[in-house]
């Protein structure tokens, strides 16, 4: 019964950890707007946490600069399994307008496995919620595979 409860709950309580990897702050503001009364992602159980150790879903914004690369990877490693990595905006996905710059080390998928990409510059809050919801389902799936 206990295992069933855990399996049932894993997708319903996703806690977010937000990493800014050199973002222009556009996506960061848009992520916070997802938690405001208008869109209220908390109705799906989303909550912003301050520490990567509490998180289930890591949201990365920004093109992953050389300066931030090591910190991003270390923060992601500190998230306990099962975890999901979501990139928000076009920057961590492709580099966007910063592609080819000497200071950009991205895209993020070169270094870690990315579960969901939410594209856009910046993505609409609806798209962000959709992407995060997809991530919760992947999270529940990962929990199932972890048990085996």
């Amino acid at each position: 019964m206990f295992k069933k409860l855990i399996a049932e709950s894993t997708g319903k309580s996703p806690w977010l950890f937000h990493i800014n990897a050199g973002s222009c702050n556009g996506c960061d503001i848009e992520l916070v707007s997802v938690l405001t009364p208008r869109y209220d992602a908390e109705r799906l159980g989303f909550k912003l946490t301050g520490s990567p150790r509490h998180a289930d879903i890591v949201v990365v914004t920004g093109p992953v600069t050389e300066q931030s690369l090591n910190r991003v990877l270390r923060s992601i490693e500190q998230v306990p399994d099962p975890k999901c990595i979501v990139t928000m905006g076009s920057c961590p996905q492709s580099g966007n307008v910063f592609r080819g710059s000497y200071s950009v080390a991205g895209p993020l998928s070169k270094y870690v496995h990315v579960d969901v990409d939410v594209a856009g510059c910046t993505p609409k809050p609806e798209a962000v919620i959709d992407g995060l919801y997809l991530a919760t389902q992947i999270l529940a799936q990962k929990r199932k595979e972890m048990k085996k």
Partner: protein
Amino acid sequence: MILDALKYLAYVLIFPGFLFCFLTGLLLAGIDRKLVARMQKRVGPPILQPFYDFFKLCGKKTIVPAAANKTVFLMAPLLGLASLVVLQLFIPVFRFQIAAFSNVADMIVILYLLLIPAVSIIMGGASTGSPYAGIGLSREMVTVLACELPLVLVLLSVGRYVGTAIGAKDGISFSLSQIVGYQLEGGSLITKASLIPAAIAFLLVIPGETGNHPFDAAEAETEICEGMLAEYSGAPLGVFKLSHAIKMLTMTSLFVMLFFGGVGAGVDNLVALIGLTGGAATAVTIILDILLMFLLCVVVTAVGISLVHAVTARLKIEQIFKYYWTVVSALALLSLVLVWYGL
């Protein structure tokens, strides 16, 4: 003998011990989150959200930091939870009280037991060696210190009031069962004019004791990553979250028993009206008493925790200390002076 042992095991594990605390505590936390959301014009999470959070955390991997003392790190959450469950055994549910505990226990025991969860979270945080935990635990100590003075003054004035009314030996009674017993006869203490400032002071102590907004400088998640919990993950974190929820139940049920204790007398009339007698009447009375207590706890949570959370922003630690030792202590002291002069 064996029957007695089984009975006490049932008290500790089922009601009013662990299982009861687990279910009602998390439910209360869920209701609190929903209420805050509705007050902010949001839809809010489902009421069962704290249950989902707890079980999800149980299914996560637990990372023990390399610098941490493993034993203290893993035992601290359990210590805090155990002391809260024990504390709940001492709080009577109107007429339902465990004789072995209620006859020896009084408010002094409750004061001591209330400290242990704070001490356990400080121990757990300190064992990680994280700088966030360091800041958090120094703030937690100050918050505990700030809450203690008004809490003691409130308990003193309630004890003195009941003590003089029932003619206790030194004119002061610290026994919770006597306080509830007096209220069943003489009406709730909230209706006594001289104790209303004390009730308000206790209501203001509740968010400080539980570490809720605006007195959560010790666990400021946007500022110091939840302070002492920064390094916790998985099941130990879940147990800390559970302790927090149970502490809300403990503080609100203590408030209900101290100030609304007389409300339970109405249940008798209801049971008599249905025409139940004997064992069935006792069982129905206990169940109705529990429901009534939980309902009153929800009301106290709504006023004392949710409303305060929704309308205020976080205070700085020195503001918290100043607030408790001036405004709240003054209210409690006013009550104490009034009661001491027999008003």
